[in-house]
């Protein structure tokens, strides 16, 4: 290893910023998974019978499934009986949640994460749903949103207040039979966010959910459902952090998006779960199923993700392009450093005519990080004149990390066009020397080169998030040189 690489490798030892824990009185189920656990979760949420039945059906199915082994990741077997499936801060009052009833320690915890829940202090134009362990503790700006007809609330509330909407869309994009983790989620999910945008409405603010795992030995299984009626538009963001713990924790979420004719959903993620320490102890297993259904003609769903955290990331935000002229997009930056592993990518299933998809994936590996892009582009027989363009770039920092690309392409319609471009590069000594010769510090140079590499993805993020993502990337890679 030459001098520069040696220095570059040090870039990886940056402390995790959000590793604090919050002391709270909680209502936590003892570890273990059984039908009884599921009945208890459902009872705590006062769920209707159909939902409990749906959970139990999923659970019984799950018992006959096995862990997927095809991903390019390694971890010891997960003991599902050792996890607690429900943990919630004790409520101070009953009835509808107002911020006054939320434990000040929780508000302080979010404040520390840079997410003020008091509306007057919040980022103008961004409404937040704050999900803490298994429950949503507050949702801001509900009233102005309600005026526009937008429903933005926790999943649990939606089950109570909008049961018909939930029932008609729940599991319609990701059925419980879809995969092992999605099935587990369908059985034990606790909370999440529900969004409904009525016909022709352009959602007046950015919507966001901030997920926080706090309690030890618990899993977080949230469920997000976004429905955009014909001609509507919504931009939704999610952020995630967790305390530093020596044990691995499981986060197995399901996100379902439904876009009807001419609707547009823009879904952005900045994922910064605790990645584990330098030796690979601890960290979140981020095993997530995200899928968007472009049901209507000319509907349009874009996924943008910046994945810097988690010990293991396993997720493939996908689009089913069912409507004619539907568009799907996937923009991703995934960073692995230390002992992190990521197997991420997307699926674009073209079913409608003239459907179009774009995939831009940027993988950055440093330290011992392993970064895998796995993507499927499927052109079904009916996908006349469908188009896909995939660009898949990997950047290596140091010589002990890895980048892997597994593109799957299936074309069953002769008029379809699929393009795939892939590159792998290394931050070169020449590049660093060039920057330093012009007076930039090595750290600055790496930051510039990495940000330049990710530019096509960052420009897809809403502005506040783009700044956040860039800062996060700088922090993540800080000290990789120097």
């Amino acid at each position, binding site marked *: 290893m030459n001098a520069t690489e040696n220095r570059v490798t040090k870039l990886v030892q940056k402390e995790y910023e959000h590793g604090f824990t919050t002391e709270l009185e909680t209502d936590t189920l003892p570890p273990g998974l059984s039908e009884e656990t599921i009945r208890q979760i459902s009872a705590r949420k006062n769920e209707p019978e159909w939902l409990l039945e749906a959970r139990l059906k999923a659970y019984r199915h799950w018992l006959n499934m096995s862990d997927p082994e095809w991903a390019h990741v390694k971890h010891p077997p997960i003991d599902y009986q050792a996890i607690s499936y429900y943990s919630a801060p004790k409520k101070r009052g009953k009835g509808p949640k107002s911020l006054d009833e939320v434990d000040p320690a929780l508000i302080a915890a979010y404040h520390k994460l840079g997410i003020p829940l008091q509306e007057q202090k919040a980022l103008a134009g961004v409404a937040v749903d704050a999900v803490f362990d298994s429950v949503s503790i507050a949702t801001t700006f509900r009233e102005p949103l309600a005026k526009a007809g937008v429903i933005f609330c926790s999943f649990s509330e939606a089950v109570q207040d909008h049961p018909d909407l939930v029932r008609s869309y729940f599991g319609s994009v990701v059925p419980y039979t879809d995969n092992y983790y999605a099935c587990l989620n369908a059985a034990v999910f606790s909370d999440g966010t529900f969004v409904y945008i009525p016909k022709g409405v352009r959602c007046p603010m950015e919507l966001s959910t901030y997920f926080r795992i706090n309690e030890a030995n618990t899993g977080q299984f949230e469920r997000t459902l976004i429905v955009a009626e014909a001609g509507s538009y919504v931009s939704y963001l999610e952020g995630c952090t967790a305390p530093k713990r020596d044990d691995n924790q499981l986060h197995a979420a399901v996100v379902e998006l439904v876009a009807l004719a001419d609707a547009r959903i823009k879904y952005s993620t900045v994922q910064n779960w605790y990645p584990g320490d330098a030796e690979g102890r601890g960290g979140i297993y981020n095993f997530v199923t995200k899928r968007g259904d472009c049901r209507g003609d000319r509907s349009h769903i874009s996924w943008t993700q910046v994945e810097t955290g988690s010990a293991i990331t396993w997720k493939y935000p996908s689009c089913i392009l069912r409507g004619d002229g539907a568009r799907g997009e996937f923009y991703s930056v995934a960073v692995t450093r230390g002992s992190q592993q990521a197997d991420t990518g997307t699926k674009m299933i073209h079913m409608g005519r003239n459907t179009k998809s774009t995939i831009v994936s940027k993988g950055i590996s440093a330290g011992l990080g392993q970064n895998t892009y796995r993507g499927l582009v499927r052109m079904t027989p009916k996908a006349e004149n469908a188009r896909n363009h995939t660009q898949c770039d990997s950047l290596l920092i140091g010589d002990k990390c890895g980048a892997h690309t597994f593109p799957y392409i299936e074309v069953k319609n002769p008029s379809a066009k699929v393009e795939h471009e892939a590159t792998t590069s290394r931050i070169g000594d020449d590049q660093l020397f060039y920057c330093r010769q012009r007076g930039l510090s090595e750290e600055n140079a790496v930051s510039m*080169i990495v940000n330049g*590499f990710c530019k096509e993805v960052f420009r897809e993020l809403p502005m506040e998030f783009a700044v956040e993502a860039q800062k996060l990337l700088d922090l993540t890679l800080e000290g990789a040189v120097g």
Partner: protein
Amino acid sequence: MLSIKELRVSIEQKSILNGLNLEIGSGEVHAIMGPNGSGKSTLSQVLAGREDYLVSGGEVLFDGLDLLALETEERAHAGLFLGMQYPVELPGVNNMTFIRESLNALRRARGEPELDAADFLRRVREQAQLVGLDQALLKRGVNEGFSGGEKKRNEILQMAMLQPKLAILDETDSGLDIDALRVIAGGVNGLRAADRSIIVITHYQRLLDYIEPDRVHVLVGGRIVRSGDKQLALELEQRGYGWLDEAAA
């Protein structure tokens, strides 16, 4: 300005510079010529602080500073600029942002305030025009997809923006057609100043038709074997380097 004494440099145990001596005064333009493999590029890389080389002896004083003790970026802060023979591409890094960051890094290091955005913009556009660099290239990634000539113009643009005390131009003329050569020579001549020294490293005499050097040095086998005025360059053009090899032996 620059004083090199008995500089010895090797890479992978192969010795490249074998006791090189060179004195450059303030405001002077020196040309260094020599055959392939004589150590011209090594000299420029070592002066700029490239880490792959082992300096086994000698000293270099730059404006009174012990140059070899400084980090690469500190040398830049002190006013050293190297125009590279093969400028690298920095994909996605906006050219204008890069130049502004560089300039501000130098200014910060010297305790000067950062240049305000409007001033910077005006200056960079002005200079780009002078070196004949298409304005559109200011908005592209640094050298990303630039032609050979555009890359060299971009180097001269950066030199003009950074206003170094010592500029080393490593084979800036290689691969340029005569028009590009003229523009670049014009850029260099425009920067001649009493408090700025310039080293032009070149293979061919033709660049020296446009940039008139105060001194010409011939580097062979890792040492300066002959120095003279611009007549020496013309002599080399006619006789090649062979006769100097014999003289050096």
